[in-house]
């Protein structure tokens, strides 16, 4: 018998002839109780609490906010479909990933990366990237030491269930909650290990 | 109300004063107390140590003794937890009496609806919530409410109160070193409060704590809280 068959057999034996699967009570909160502005306030509060930098702006201020967030950055990585309207005020050099993918060395040599996101979750201060428009492949937001992420108000979900329900399970997802951190030394959280040590979130509120 | 006292074996042999205090207290509140003499031990030590077969006859004995009462009270969170949590699994016929068996503070606060039992105890007291009372019976602050209502009693909080004292029945013997390390921290916390008395709802834990305090020569008395509530006035 091969390993697969044997393991499946073992598990069937262990369970006996009629295992009962209990019903799952789902009485936890699922709906977003908060309205849009309250969600944004909560998101900002939680992001700041976990040491992300946050800028709030109106739709017509995105380019200026991006440029300010990137002050001092001379080489910026951006995914292929980054809206020109985000970049118009940024004076440095933009290196675009694609059609030829950037090498790891090129990513490592950039001062920052600018992306959008798929969803943000207010209650946990999380942004989720799924490789969709203006997000690019996963390495882009990992290797550069500074990640600037534009979140629009319609992307903000209140809690984890509401956030997850907006996502496509089979896309490669990255949930980001604050800059890279560790709790490995005396169980205290310290920011800044292997992932980007600076996370700057630009929250675009309705105009 | 006619209430049966389940004293527990440890109290019968080592701490009869706790039983006397419970009787005095309930009679003072106008209730009739019965001590059915066929009672022995709840079987907790056996069941928790891997001797279920030896525990089952003791469970049956408990049911035979107490099933005819409306309410059974025991001055031990641990034994009541055994009766309420484990009995129905060991002996299905115990399910009924298991729900009518109360730890003293449950009987007083939940069933009889009293918190001020009219006791006087002009001393500085700290209270250790023993694990089974705390996490299995969820006694919460019931014992504290009773103690706070005692005239003259100065209740001081015990830091790290919810941490186990390290008794754990046979654990105290089988893992004596770890038990002792836990006890040391508990004794230090108790001494640091400056209390004259450490009270709890379980004399077995108190035997362990008291043994540690007396070994280090600490001037702290251990007392079951029933003895404070039902003290001779």
């Amino acid at each position: 018998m091969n390993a697969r068959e044997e393991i499946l057999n073992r598990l069937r034996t262990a369970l006996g002839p009629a295992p009962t699967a209990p019903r799952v009570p789902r009485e936890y909160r699922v709906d977003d109780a908060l309205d849009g502005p309250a969600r944004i306030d909560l998101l900002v509060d939680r992001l700041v609490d976990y040491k992300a930098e946050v800028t709030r702006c109106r739709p017509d201020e995105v380019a200026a906010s991006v440029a300010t967030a990137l002050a001092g950055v001379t080489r910026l990585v951006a995914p292929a479909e980054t809206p020109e309207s985000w970049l118009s005020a940024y004076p440095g050099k933009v290196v675009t990933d694609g059609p030829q993918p950037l090498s790891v060395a090129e990513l490592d040599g950039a001062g920052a990366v600018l992306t959008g996101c798929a969803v943000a979750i207010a209650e946990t201060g999380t942004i989720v990237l799924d490789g969709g428009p203006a997000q690019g492949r996963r390495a882009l937001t990992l290797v550069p030491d500074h990640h600037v992420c534009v979140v629009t108000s319609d992307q903000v979900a209140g809690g984890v269930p509401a956030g997850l329900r907006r996502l496509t399970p089979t896309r490669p997802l990255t949930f980001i909650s604050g800059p890279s951190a560790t709790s490995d030394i005396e169980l205290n959280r310290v920011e800044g290990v292997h992932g980007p040590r600076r996370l700057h979130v630009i929250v675009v509120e309705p105009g | 109300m006619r209430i049966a006292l389940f004293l527990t074996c440890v109290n019968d042999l080592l701490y009869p004063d706790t039983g006397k205090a419970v009787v005095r207290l309930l009679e003072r509140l106008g209730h009739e107390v019965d001590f059915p003499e066929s009672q022995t031990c709840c079987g907790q030590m056996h069941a928790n140590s891997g001797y279920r077969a030896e525990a089952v006859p003791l469970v049956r004995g408990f049911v035979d003794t107490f099933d005819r009462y409306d309410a059974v009270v025991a001055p031990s969170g641990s034994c009541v937890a055994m009766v309420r949590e484990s009995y129905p699994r060991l002996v299905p016929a115990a399910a009924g009496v298991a729900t009518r068996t109360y730890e003293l503070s449950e009987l007083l606060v939940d069933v009889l609806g009293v918190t001020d039992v009219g006791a006087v105890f002009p001393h500085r007291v700290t209270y250790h919530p023993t694990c089974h009372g705390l996490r299995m019976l969820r006694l919460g602050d019931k014992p504290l409410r009773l103690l706070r209502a005692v005239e003259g009693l100065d209740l001081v909080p015990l830091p790290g109160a919810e941490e186990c004292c390290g008794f754990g029945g046979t654990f105290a013997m089988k893992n004596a070193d770890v038990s002792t390390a836990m006890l040391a921290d508990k004794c230090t916390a108790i001494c640091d409060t400056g209390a004259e008395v450490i009270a709890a709802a379980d004399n077995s834990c108190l035997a362990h704590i008291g043994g540690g305090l007396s070994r280090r020569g600490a001037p702290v008395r251990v007392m079951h809280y029933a003895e404070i509530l039902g003290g001779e006035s």
Partner: protein
Amino acid sequence: MTLPHGTGHLAGSRPFPAAAHVELGKPQLRANLHKATHTIRNKRARVVEELPDWEQLRLAGSAIKANVMARLPELLVEFEAAATAAGAVVHWARDAAEACEVVTRLVRETGTDEVVKVKSMATQEIELNQALERAGISATETDLAELIVQLADDEPSHILVPAIHYNRSQIRDIFTERMGDAPAGLTDEPRVLAEAARLHLRRKFLSSKVAISGANFAIAETGTLVVLESEGNGRMCLTLPETLISVVGVEKLLPSFSDLEVFLQLLPRSSTGERMNPYTSTWTGVTAGDGPQNVHIVLVDNGRSATLADEVGRQALHCIRCSACLNVCPVYERVGGHAYQSVYPGPIGAILSPQMTGIEANKTLPFASTLCGACYDVCPVRINIPEVLVHLRQAAVDSRRDKPSAERTAMKAMAWVMGDRRRYARALRAARRGTVPLERVLRRRTVRHLPWPMSAWTASRDAPLPAPESFRDWWRRTR
């Protein structure tokens, strides 16, 4: 059909009390553990309190896991089909040795002799690093705490924070002495230590061809794997190399993606005491142009089916390895993880290790608890650890039914006495009579030294003597 037990790092040679005795003699360890466990307890309590529906989440989490166990064979087949359709290659391993063989072969096929690893309990359990080393493959642990332990040539002592037994200055010393490229003048500032680890591993990350991971969850419906982490070393391993090999215990399944909405709330708050851990990655097979293009998944039994066979004990398989139970355990806090001699320490280890190995190899672990219940209270999936401990104590005692034992004789004698009120009353009086002379000599009601086996008590505690009159005698006399 008998269900074989697990092998690998699941048991040691010493009984728990003996191992604990050694650990208790290390004051620095005690101080480090006390500080760390109390820090994390408080953090956890704060973020759990924030959620008004924490208990509902626990109930859902517990039921989802029970559901998974009942449907495990069919869910595994579903997972395999979905992952394969998405471009992953699924392998199966009956035990630790087979899992190591599979992984070693997969690494060899890539032609490399260097791999980076993201912290995984499953690979520690199967002792993968040792197996790779024997095959001439060097594995670098990239999680900060794992790196510390690996550099120190030590063993992990905690599920989540394997180096919990070291404080910052000890970590500084380990880095200074053992990390070839440690910056000169390293301080013990955690930020500085984290920076040193970043520099040390960065080149490895950017050049590695093969990574090995575990998974926190495997989604049956979609074939998706999920890893939660903090530092970004996970993302490095899961994203940059060409080949990714994930070793996953069969119990890690969840039926569907939507179940994550429960576990992504339960796990981070219970483990690091954060609302959400910094990074969570999910991947489903291969994504063209993004991440590893060769994705392997090794599904491991290694004693899990044997554990599943026990109706009371199988709930141990619900564990999501948050380590909350370790952090609140008064026993763990005093002795640390090494005393348990298994990759799974603390309360969960005390119920999981003996089931995976069979009770014979771990017969003292179920007794390594006061049954205080703190673990059950915090467990995000409501594993009734005290219940399973008592159940396994029974198994330990039963396994020795045919051998003589002083304890059994005493237990039986006591049960016999207590089985009858007259015998019991006589015994109380006898106990009283036996100690009267002692009390006269001592002039008090406590005693400092008792012979074996009670010497285990009086080594550190005075023992009470029977009262002058038992309660039942008093009752008789006065009523």
